[in-house]
């Protein structure tokens, strides 16, 4: 250990600091502080000459701790750390005294500001003189990614990573990938056939040598950390052996059980031995155990003999657990549509001719239950009302946010009605129309010109009058109550976080923003990262999005996820917790408060006895320090934020007013 030699550098920041803080006096003050070998001031320390000044002094005065009194450490801490490193001393032997944002910019009185700057500086020097050199560790990265969710976001992300050359596990809970996009008829504003543009991507996934597709699967456990996640995946039994099924479908007719078709949102029936939709990937059947008489009661078994040749049906199949090691994870678990029964005044569930936007998509789709004819009770509706913002921008249901797609998909659906039933009268109730995307406004304009009536107003009630439904609303432009008779009401339901999202969030330790969607690391600058290193977000799990945004975010997440994979190493946080074995009493308080499961109790031999002692996984630790405050014996400390260092600041701040 060599003697502590602190160099103090005071930045004028042009006049930003100098005009309020007497830098000459401050430099004089600093030079007299304990352990300070040299104190200097300079006009712009962050400039190259400023950094050179520090570097030269480090060599000339053999400095081993540096204090920079300048702007916020949130600005230039990395800059000066680099300078220290290049001068040959440990970059963590730096402490920044924030005399700009916290002093010169917020005070006017020069004397008082200077006094406060002295106080800040003295405390910073006190801490700096106790700093220890720290190391960032490097750990190897397993060059494999895991994508959670097989909707368009997951598909895009998986393809991008696979194309980059890394292996990807794509985990989808349903029997086929495709997600919500597969259920859509057309996409706005271009009116592409949704399935037509999606299915080629799906088959790419199915055929990609780098993608291992795990459908009908869920994750059940996640351990490890960036570069080295260990994920346990449960493969639910589909009772059809995937490798053997060739999708011929001969078995279907032998299955005697019908059930509501989930792909068509229960608007039609399917057999309980089924393929979700013809283009499903994998093109493999599945048996729904909740309906199959064999899985329920060990009866029936009529399907099995049909597939004798391939032997693909296995009604005794059990769930399987697979453990995979991956370096990074992309969460693309998607969304649910808002459940409109939560707004009973709209009559959903009560009247069969009140449907959701997604249900409309199935009705409108050529692959849907009506092969594309929009029919209600066997008749084409003559009057159709669309209602915007169902479950969005609505504090009464706790969703303050805009779902971003409803305006446009309603416009699209209104257009489709006009297309299919040209004489239909279509009314749209809206609050605001948000047509902000590329081609959106143009599309909205086109739809309006097609004769669709847009009425600004809140719908108060939907009720039945004879055969017809009546939509009662307040037209806020006219300021009057209006009633519109209609045959069909389509609710533009918004997006909500998936009902089962908590399970995944807890497994991955992800936090949610106040709207309950997953929280990104930074709303502006790190929109696809999460607070957990190596875990990224794509698509609507992070918040409502349309398809192009989702695809863009998925590609972004994929390229982010590829960074550690291609670097092959990740650097870990240096200011992590460390345990003094001799003081640890093995109570596990630190283990309990750690948000990252970074601490565990490990049997350790202390003075000849084996006792449980806390042990920090430095890769998992993010350096929050919650464990330090929980520890009663002072055994666990956070590097660069030790009790000793913080107490020295406390003492120094007190002394300044003695």
């Amino acid at each position: 250990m060599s003697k502590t030699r602190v160099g103090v550098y005071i930045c004028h920041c042009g006049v930003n600091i100098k005009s309020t803080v007497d830098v000459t006096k401050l430099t004089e003050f600093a030079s007299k502080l304990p352990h300070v070998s040299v104190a200097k001031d300079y006009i712009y320390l962050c400039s190259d000459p400023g950094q050179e000044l520090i570097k030269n002094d480090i060599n000339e005065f053999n400095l081993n701790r540096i204090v920079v009194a300048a702007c916020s450490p949130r600005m230039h801490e990395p800059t000066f750390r680099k300078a220290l490193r290049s001068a040959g001393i440990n970059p963590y032997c730096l402490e920044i005294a924030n005399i700009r944002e916290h002093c010169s910019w917020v005070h006017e009185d020069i004397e008082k500001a200077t006094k406060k700057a002295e106080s800040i500086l003295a405390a910073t020097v006190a801490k700096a003189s106790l700093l220890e050199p720290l190391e960032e560790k490097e750990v190897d990265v397993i060059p494999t990614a895991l994508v959670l969710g097989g909707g368009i976001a997951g598909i895009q992300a998986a393809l991008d990573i696979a194309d980059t050359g890394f292996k990807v596990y794509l985990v989808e809970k349903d029997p086929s990938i495709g997600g919500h996009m597969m259920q859509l008829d057309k996409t706005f504003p271009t009116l592409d056939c949704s399935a037509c543009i999606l299915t080629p991507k799906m088959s790419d996934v199915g055929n990609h040598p780098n993608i291992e597709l795990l459908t009908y699967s869920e994750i059940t456990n996640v351990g490890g950390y960036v570069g080295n996640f260990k994920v346990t995946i449960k493969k639910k039994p589909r009772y059809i052996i995937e490798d053997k099924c060739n999708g011929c479908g001969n078995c279907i007719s032998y299955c005697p059980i019908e059930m509501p078709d989930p792909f068509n949102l229960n608007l039609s029936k399917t057999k309980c031995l089924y393929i979700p939709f013809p283009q499903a990937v994998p093109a493999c059947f599945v048996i729904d155990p909740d309906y199959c008489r064999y899985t329920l009661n060990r009866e029936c078994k009529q399907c099995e003999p049909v597939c004798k040749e391939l032997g693909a049906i296995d009604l005794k199949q059990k769930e399987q657990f697979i453990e995979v090691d991956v370096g990074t994870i992309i969460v693309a678990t998607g969304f649910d549509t808002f459940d409109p029964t939560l707004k009973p005044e709209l009559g959903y569930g009560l009247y069969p001719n009140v449907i959701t936007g997604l249900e409309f998509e199935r009705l409108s789709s050529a692959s849907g239950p009506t092969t594309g004819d929009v029919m209600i009770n066997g008749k084409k509706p003559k009057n159709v009302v669309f209602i915007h913002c169902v479950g969005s921008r609505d504090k009464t249901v706790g969703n303050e946010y805009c779902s971003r797609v409803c305006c446009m998909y309603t416009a699209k659906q209104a257009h489709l009605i006009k297309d299919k039933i040209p004489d239909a009268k279509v009314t749209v109730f809206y609050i605001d129309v948000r047509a902000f995307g590329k081609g959106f406004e143009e599309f909205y304009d086109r739809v309006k010109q097609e004769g669709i009536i847009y009425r600004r107003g809140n719908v108060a009630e939907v009720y039945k009058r004879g055969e017809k439904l009546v939509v009662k609303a307040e037209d806020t432009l006219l300021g009057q109550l209006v009633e519109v008779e209609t045959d069909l009401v389509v609710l533009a339901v918004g997006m909500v976080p998936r009902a089962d999202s908590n399970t995944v969030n807890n497994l991955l330790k992800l936090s949610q923003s106040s709207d309950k969607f997953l929280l990104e690391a930074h709303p502006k600058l790190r929109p696809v990262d999460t607070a957990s290193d190596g875990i990224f977000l794509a698509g609507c799990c992070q918040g409502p999005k349309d398809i192009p945004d989702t695809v863009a975010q998925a590609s972004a997440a994929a390229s982010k996820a590829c960074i550690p994979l291609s670097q092959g190493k990740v650097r870990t946080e240096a200011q992590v917790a460390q345990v003094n074995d001799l003081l640890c009493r093995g109570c596990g308080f630190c283990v309990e408060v750690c948000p990252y499961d970074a601490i565990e109790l490990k049997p350790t031999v202390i003075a000849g006895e084996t006792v449980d002692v806390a042990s920090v996984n430095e890769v998992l630790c993010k350096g929050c320090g919650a464990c330090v405050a929980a520890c009663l014996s002072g055994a666990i400390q956070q590097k660069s934020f030790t009790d000793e260092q913080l107490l020295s600041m406390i003492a120094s701040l007190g002394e300044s007013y003695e």
Partner: protein
Amino acid sequence: MKNPYVPEIAKIIDVRDEALGVRPIKTFKVSFQNGHDFNHRPGQCAIIGLLGTGESMISIASSPTKNGYLEFSVMKLGKVTSALHACETGDTISIRGPYGNGFPIDDWKGKNIVTIGGGIGQAPLRPILQYILDNREDYGKLDIIYGARTTNDLCFKEELFELEKRDDVNVHLSIDMKEEGWTRFVGFVPTNLLEVKPPPDNTIAITCGPVVMIKFVIKNLLALGFSDQQIFTTMENRMKCGIGKCGRCNVGHLYVCKDGPVFSYATLKDLPEF
């Protein structure tokens, strides 16, 4: 009356690394600013410290025959010694002392001397060597038996290598485990002692080192025919006041700081706790 708790201030005039490793050792050469004369005997200790940090009892590693300075070899262990290790030439430290009884070196005139040291335990023996070499004609044969775990832990290496070249001193160095380039003895100090086999006649044996080593050295000395009165050792305990008042360093009724640190085995063996 002189206040025994108030230290003198001295300046570090040289710092030397003795041993590196987990518990590094440095030797500090200090002199008093006002030319104050310390007047110590070999084997005595002083309390050195840093104001604001605290004090630590350290044996004086230089002989009174070396005028104008004192040397202290300090192993980095606790709060004070760690702070001392961060000191450099030009820094000041505080000194109180000298304390303790020291070796009855004048009583040993005309006798053969064997010192048996281990690790940092050579530090209190070093003033004996210096003293005898500075008064060579007063003493008989001088054997230096000294060892450490590794060459890295061997203190005063250069000096001892120099002494090896002299005719009037026999130096027997050892390290515990084999190392490349080490041609001298490999093994523990007590074993080396049996190799050297100093004859007990008219000889005084002084040993210092880890407690376990001392116990085996004494056992082997007795086996070689040394009597209890011919064997001396120095002890250490936690100390604070250095003047036999604060209570903690007692071994039996004797205080290591005041009545020690030098004890003949004849005294020591009757004390409880040894």
